[in-house]
């Protein structure tokens, strides 16, 4: 079966600093994968390269078999990217924003309109659909951006810190939606600093530091590596990250 995402020996340097260092990563279809790591570990850089926003120095990236570097259009058509700061047009309404995204991804209007209605209703934005997003709260903006990411029904959804700044109710809504998406066969990658979220929703977890994958597996597998069935993800994470930091020092 084709992987949703295959990353091989991916490297990106910014001057002397190596942000991503010969990274190998495989995300299976229908999987919810959480990529964890401290600030500056290379999580966002990796996802930005997958999305085609950054050009890798070396390595390869394939999304459902489409090479992101040689055939970016085909790969992008299957992708959706939700950055940590939702990028909306404040003078457009939520409905117009979805219309715009649908148009960019080449979704037929007859398909896009009912899909937009469904998403806006699901995310509790239906009554606000004709309001300009400039008046939206942080949570509403995040939900609008999420609806935008889902309007073209991407095969691989990538989210960078999707729960930052959201209140508990909205965060719960987003988590449910992501799990639902994975259950229905969609692939999801998310980066987060909230370990509890990764522990609860992710099928597999990857821990990255200094641009390298330190460990990867299900929560049980990671616990096994940490040497205790009762260990929390936080214990595992701190053990792994702490060990390399101590080694680096």
């Amino acid at each position, binding site marked *: 079966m084709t992987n949703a995402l295959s990353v091989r020996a991916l490297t990106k340097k910014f001057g002397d600093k190596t942000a991503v260092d010969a990274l190998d990563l495989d995300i299976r279809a229908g999987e919810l994968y959480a990529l964890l790591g401290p600030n500056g570990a290379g999580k966002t850089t990796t996802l930005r390269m997958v999305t085609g926003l950054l050009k890798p120095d070396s390595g390869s990236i394939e999304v459902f078999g489409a090479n*992101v570097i040689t055939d970016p259009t085909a790969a992008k058509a299957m*992708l959706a990217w939700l950055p940590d700061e939702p*990028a909306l047009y404040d003078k*457009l309404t939520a409905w117009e924003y979805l219309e715009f995204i649908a*148009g*960019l991804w*080449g979704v037929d209007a007859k398909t896009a*309109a009912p899909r937009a209605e469904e998403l806006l209703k699901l995310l509790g934005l239906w009554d606000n659909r004709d309001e*300009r997003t400039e008046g939206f709260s942080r949570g509403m903006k995040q939900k609008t951006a999420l609806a935008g990411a889902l309007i073209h029904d991407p095969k691989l959804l990538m989210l960078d810190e999707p729960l930052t700044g959201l209140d508990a109710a909205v965060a719960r809504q987003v988590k449910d939606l992501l799990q639902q998406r994975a259950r229905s066969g969609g692939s999801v990658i998310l980066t987060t600093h909230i370990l509890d979220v990764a522990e609860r929703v992710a099928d597999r977890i990857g821990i990255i530091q200094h641009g390298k994958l330190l460990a990867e597996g299900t929560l049980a597998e990671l616990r096994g590596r940490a040497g205790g069935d009762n260990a929390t993800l936080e214990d595992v994470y701190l053990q792994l990250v702490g060990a390399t930091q101590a080694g680096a020092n």
Partner: protein
Amino acid sequence: MFGPGGVLFLLRHEMLLIWRNFRATGKGRHVRRIIFYSLMIALLGFGGYWVARLLSEVTPEPTPLMLGAVGAAFVILFSLMLSQALMLITESLYQRGDLDLLLSSPVPLWRVLIVRMSAIAINVGLLYLILTGAVFVWLPYFGGWAWMSFAPSVLLLTLFATAAGLVLARVMFATIGPRNTRTIAQILASLVGAAFFIATQIPRLTEDETRAQAMRELFERAVPILGDASSPISLPARAAFGIGVDFWIWALVSLAAFILAVWWYASNFAADAAAISGVGGRKRRVARAAQKMQSGVRQTLVRKEWRLLRRDPLLLSQILLPLLYFIPLFAVFGSRFGDQGFDRISAAGFASAFVLMLTSFAASLAWLTVSAEDAPDLIASAPVSRDEIDNAKALAAAVPSVALLLPPAIGAAIFVTPAAGFWMVIGGAAAIISTCLIAIWHQTPGSRKQFRRRTRGSLMLNFGRSFVALGWIGATGLAVSGWAIFAILPALVSLGLLLALHESRPPVAERGAAL
């Protein structure tokens, strides 16, 4: 005053921010910048030297005529300063920056505001400070003591203009509310700034004799008012001439006006600031007939750009206001056409002027639609090629420009000759296409909010752009006047420059998406 939270402490902070902003606007290597500033200082110093030398040989005579002339210059300066101050005052409220931080600190409100407004006054007066300062430093060397109060008088005018700007902004807040103030203030500031230019052009609408007569009458009326040594209106001019205590009275008046204006402004500031912070929160609904959507990448992008433009009156006014400068020009042609109809030469002049205006309009619009993007990552992550996106965005600028071109071109075809209309369309279209292509090749990416602050590329690029436009303007004029064969030369110059601008474009990766 000097300690943390004191006036000078805050003023230093403001000056640091102004300096950093100033430095951030200038691109280029450190050495190149040093050479540029050294040349500017040398040039100013040289100019100042000669002006100071010439002035020192003349004793300032505050005759009614001289007072009137200086008074008129002060009126013009005041209008320009007021325009800039009004713009900066309203912007300082809407683009809060560190204002919330300062207001949440235990520093008294009046102190924060007096420093911020002083910084605005300094910002407004900086250019005049540099220009008059270049002369001022040489005056003692040549013994031109009698002219020494001229520069300080101009700088005091800055304080007075800032005070007037504060009063005007406060009145606008009270009468039309915070939501409209920003847009209206912007338009008003531009109108005030343009007023002098437009006013000087109005006499051109009349015949030479009538114009000369009108100017004489205007002068005869203005001199007794501005040059009346007993009138308070001539106070700044008298201060500039260093008459007795007039300079000190002018200093007191402008300083008092500034302090009183800040005090009045501060007394309502909390309410105004609260009203502004609520501006973005109002729910603005857009009426829509049915739950329909439209497909197609190009249509989607064009519609998005038009929607964003239409819903941002501030930006729209910034694009449209430069067109005001062309009104007197077209009024001249209009009056001539009304009197005797258009001959080919008049038509050529009109066509050239129109292509000039069209280029200015298209350049602003193309720059905005192509470069200004609030969600660049979203666009770059879409499965659409960079070229498709750029072309669609340029199209969003080209269509309104063509719509502006067609009516006068049809008019020229009907009232002059069909060939005149044809050449006007060709010249106008070439200018629009060139402008859009340059906007694509030399993008300056940024958000729409940064529109006003962003420069449109390097000096060389601006020169190139201007000369491409001039080529098309010349070619259109020549072709419309019946010398189409001679139009080939300026057209070729434009094409050559366009080619050079194409070759000097930055790589695609620097203009947007990596892949």
